[in-house]
């Protein structure tokens, strides 16, 4: 089975101090660390597991600047065979739709049976790229997948619904699945593992190689225009209760009762 995995390198924001940059349309990323998008790490692991079981190849694709090589290399070290980076200044500002369009053109050049993406990205969280990509390619898709069973030319996949419900669907190949966290346990990539793939070629394509016009991608090719990004306004001061645990517990229950939280 030949699998394509679309990935993204994202900033890590947990525990970090976040501020808005000068444009007012993005956060200041200068002091942040970056890593492979968490959902994508499950997608690439799932692809490698399928390859280990069934053979075939795994190709990773990422749209982004040269720094995306870091995440592509991580995937190569996990066991991917090829890596492709889609880089062009014209791609900047692409929304989910424009991003999917760029990815679609790259995917068309490669034979595949299955495409995996993360369900969403940690940074903008649109959750659109995977499903739009499937539409553009004219193949079926299933989103938020947490289990895959391969049955010859089709797949049986489990989709995570709300409230612990699961939906099981059958889907014909070629298909696209957006992968949910928890589907597997992504393997660790050691420094030595990264060093081993340091020299491996990462192919890079821009808009001309993908036959894309400048107005089809980036801001001009996007339907969503970002107005501004802001931090949630700080609420009213919190009340810190003091005293022994039993006194605090008493005060909490009084407050809850007063405000109608306990009936």
């Amino acid at each position, binding site marked *: 089975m030949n699998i394509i995995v679309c990935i993204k390198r994202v900033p*890590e924001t*947990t*525990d*970090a*101090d976040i501020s808005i940059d000068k444009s007012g349309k993005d956060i200041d990323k200068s*002091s942040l*660390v970056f*890593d492979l998008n968490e959902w994508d790490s499950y997608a690439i692991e799932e692809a490698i597991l399928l390859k280990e079981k069934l053979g075939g190849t795994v190709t990773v694709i990422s749209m982004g600047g040269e720094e995306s090589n870091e995440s592509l290399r991580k995937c190569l070290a*996990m066991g991917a065979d090829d890596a492709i980076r889609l880089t062009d200044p014209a791609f900047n500002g692409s929304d989910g739709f424009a991003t999917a369009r760029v990815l679609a053109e790259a995917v068309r050049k490669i034979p595949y049976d299955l495409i995996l993406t993360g369900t969403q990205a940690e940074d903008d969280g649109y959750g659109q790229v995977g499903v739009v990509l499937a539409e553009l390619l004219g193949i079926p898709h299933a989103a938020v997948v947490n289990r895959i069973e391969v049955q010859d030319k089709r797949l049986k996949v489990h989709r995570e619904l709300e409230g612990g419900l699961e939906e099981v669907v059958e889907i014909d190949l070629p298909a696209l699945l957006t992968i949910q966290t928890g589907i597997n*346990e*992504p*393997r*660790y*990539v*050691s*420094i*030595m*593992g*990264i*060093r081993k793939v340091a020299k491996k070629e990462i192919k890079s394509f821009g808009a001309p190689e993908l036959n894309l016009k400048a107005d089809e991608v980036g801001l001009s090719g996007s339907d969503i225009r970002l107005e501004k990004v802001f931090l949630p306004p700080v609420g009213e001061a919190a009340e810190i209760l003091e005293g022994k645990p039993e006194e605090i517990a008493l005060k909490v229950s009084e407050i809850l009762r007063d405000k109608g939280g306990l009936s």
Partner: protein
Amino acid sequence: MELSEQTFAQKFDLYGCFQCGKCTGGCPVSLKSKLNIRRLMIEAILGRNLDRLGEREELWDCTTCKTCTIRCPRGLKPMDLVIGMRGMLVEEGHIPKTIIEAMENTYKHRNPWGKPKNKRTEWTKTLPEDVKVKNFSEGDRAEFLYFAGCTASSDPRIQEVAKALLFSFQQGEVDFGILGNEEQCCGNEIRRMGEAGLFEELVEGNVNRFESYQIERIVTMCPHGFNVLKNEYPQGRFDVLHTTQLLAKRLEEGKLSLKKEVKKVVTYHDPCFLGKQNSVFDEPRILLKAIPGLTFKEMDRSRERSLCCEGGGGRMWVEASSDTGQRLAEIRVNDAVELDAEILVTACPFCILTLEDAVKTSGHEDRLRVMDVTELLVEAIE
């Protein structure tokens, strides 16, 4: 697997093993874990089960206390075999999730706790006004680099110890500076978890920094950092001290005056990486015994025979594979309670955290406190 069984046995120098079992006999976790270090030696020699290492959860139970290696009559290094096996699993990538997190945190944030790297020195902001801290990365120079370490930079409890330490440095007229946000993980635990490549990278980064600031003398309160900086960093370039060594020296020179009485019954737990691995047994005791009013009692298992607290070798980031048997830290706490000690003193951030936890889980919060040597010193200074 990359190594053939032949070279595996050669690489870890296993052939000298005559299966006497002294290693397992001394192993503190052998009572409660499937880990049997003697059996691991013979299986490795015979090349048995080497392809199924991934199933051996108990490999992560080893605390790298080094008792096995220290006691082996043939001078072999059974502990290194465990680390080597972990290394093979690390390269395959199939290791416990919490260990992966610790390693990825160290790669990204330069500490296993995941504290953002630009917040490493946050704890210095709450120091008392009169404690001045030089910072090498801001152009200051000093006789000693105080290598704070990841735990003191991340954990609120250990930050209290670091603060006490800086106060006693000032009292003892120690000329010291920190590396600021440029300090990064020493790599001791990383190496012991089997991530050899990351360890190399950390050593290189740290050594380059030390050299660029002409640092020659390093003092740290973390025995794990002390061990690796002293024994596993390039030799002969840095003079590395544990804080108890430096403070004992200052006491001897009359630069620390301990005037205030501390009327407490106190016992001392030897951290593995300070005591049995680096033979620093006396200095913490000298410091404690110099405190007026203090009654010092020795636990039965002390010095070389000290019981491991289970905090080393990556165990701060992974639970034991089986729940059978008592936590060793709880046994240790009971030892102290039996002596009627009011304070269980130690000199290691991991020991403080594991022992303090054990005081709570064993229900001894009203009877016993866990403190670092320096914290008690400060009580006698003020």
